[in-house]
């Protein structure tokens, strides 16, 4: 759905348009925040903060400078950094918060998913938790938010080359964490 007409209406003061924008972006913002912070309560708080700021200040958004999602991601990343600064994150693994049943959709995973989940619990997400916040931002923005280097630079307030370096460093660290052997096995499966 094209959000430009909604954004313009919201900029003119249309509350209904603002509500529609909230509905469109709340899930994405929440999940981005969760990817950045790894804690559901913190992610909820950050997403609420980011959406509140973005919608109440939507007249500041300039259509010609960036997409609305990039602008919103920038606010979300900034709020997540603030949150991280204010709080010493508890050393709870992502597997723990992912396991909070009441906040997970009614989803019954199959046997393969169970295997993957165990793998994830023991592999990717624990590796992600060990990354520095900036490298984690790079991974989440690239692989979850599907941002380009340019957008990553804008959101993380750094140059394009810095964004590229952070991403490659983050991937490298994750590869080491996950173990080359496992990756090689997966690679052979992929190219076969």
């Amino acid at each position, binding site marked *: 759905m094209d959000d430009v007409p909604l954004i313009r209406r919201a900029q003119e003061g249309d509350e209904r348009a603002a509500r529609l924008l909230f509905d469109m972006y709340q899930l994405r913002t929440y999940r981005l925040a969760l990817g950045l912070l790894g804690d559901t309560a913190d992610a909820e708080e950050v*997403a609420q903060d980011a959406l509140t700021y973005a919608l109440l200040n939507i007249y500041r958004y300039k259509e010609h400078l960036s997409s609305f999602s990039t602008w919103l991601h920038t606010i979300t990343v900034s709020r997540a950094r603030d949150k991280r600064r204010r709080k010493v994150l508890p050393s709870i693994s992502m597997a723990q918060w992912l396991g909070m049943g009441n906040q997970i959709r009614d989803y019954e995973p199959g046997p393969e998913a169970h295997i993957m989940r165990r793998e994830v619990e023991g592999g990717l997400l624990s590796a992600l938790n060990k990354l520095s916040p900036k490298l984690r931002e790079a991974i989440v923005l690239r692989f979850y938010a599907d941002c380009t280097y340019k957008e990553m630079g804008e959101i993380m307030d750094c140059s394009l080359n810095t964004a590229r370096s952070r991403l490659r460093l983050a991937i490298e660290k994750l590869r080491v964490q996950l173990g080359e052997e496992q990756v090689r096995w997966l690679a052979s499966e992929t190219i076969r």
Partner: protein
Amino acid sequence: MVSKRNHPLEQSHYDDPTLEEYVLGQLLPGEEEAIRQHLTECAVCRTKVAAYRAACQRIKSGLFQKLDEVAPGPRLSFDHIASEWRKPPRRITFLYRLQQLMPSTSSLVLLALFVVAFLLVMPPSDTAALRNLGLIEDYNGPRSVVAASTDDGLVILRLSAGDVEVVSHMSYMIDPRNLQFSPDGQWLALQQGRTLHIIETLNQGAHIRLDLDDSADWSWSPDGQRLAYTDGEGGLYVFDIATQTSRLLVPAEECAWGRPVWTSDGQQIAYSMVKPLPGSGASHDQQSIWRVDPSNGFRVELTRNDAPDDVLLVPAAWVQDDNALLVWDVKAGAIGSLPELYYVDAAAHHLEPLRGYSVAAGTRLAWPVSARGMVLAIHRDQLVFLDLDQSTRQSIPDQFPRPHNLAWAPNGAWMAYTVSGMAEGQGLYVFALQDGESHQVELPGGAVEKAVSWAGAEHLFVIRQPLDSSSAELWVVPLTTGQDPQRVLTNIRMPQTGPYVGWRWQDVLAMQVIQ
């Protein structure tokens, strides 16, 4: 570039960063194609790429799989935003407020209908402005055209028996000057700012605009088909109504100045030459009176002023069948002094004082010359008639009231004049040249008479100022029919006083009888 040899140990390879950028899709299309080709031949690079791609895919799928399973709790809601949204100062545009007030198309249609109805019921500003004029409804004077300057702009009227037609109302024309109708009443020339407007006195008529300087002046040819004008910068031009173009007669370096004066046959124009032009602040080196043939620009000096620093000579009218010129002088720095009259023999190029003084009204004589060559003058504090055609002088009895403003009938046999300082309605007189008697024309009270002009042979236009009013009225006064005088319109702007003496009525009002 990689080598073509097939043994892995003999092949060249891409470095890791390049292969990683390839996997991440960040290379240019040409580079990407080259690597794709290379990978078909190089197992080492292919393995690296596969491993890197697998790692990336795993990261991506892992993130998606896990994050997409999670949904926010009820704490994440729009309710908080909504309550803040409604608090001032929210930036709500006027357009949105309008949309909130009129949410439906039907409301817009209703609003449009309301606006149309409002416009139909409410009189346009034109109507209000015209209502202020108090226009006469049962006009019984001669067919005429009138231009009046009011606080609501300039109004041009056509008057005929029982009918008053508003030809045009130019609300933007708030400070016009020097209103002059052509003798046939078809055109009106006036100046506003630095533009000479030549306006056809018809509804939706032509309107020509010419650039001028402030001190420009002009006059119509007797047939009303040409307008001679000095542009205030030394040039003398003739504007032709038929072609609606201007033609230069006297170039600016010859310093033509003031009002051009046409001969009765329209064959010659008399004008004044002043070097340097008045207003420059410098003393005048040269001044003379010239005549020019408007058909070919051929010009002749009629007479020269020997004392240009003391007085400037201004042509007033041709007399003696266009063989002589009545001239008056403007005394430099002597505001309020009476101008002296002179006679110029066009053939002999001779300037002769007439031993008489006149009264100026702005840049014109308040006591003009009659069609018979008669002019009123003051000689030794006595009023005298100077007969310029016969070169005679006729004294007037002492009890003759001194005119403030004067107009000759078209046949030159009657003179109408106003006298200042008279009681309301008592200031208008008519003088019969034949019997030498003045007759007072009594007008209704409530206003004093300020100026007069003839409206044909049997009517007068009289400008009056109501008591305690800062505006003027135009009246038409029948002389022979016994009908009552009528007020034609009111609320005419009062003019400025002229640079020398008198009131510049030509800046606020012009009347012309039409056939």
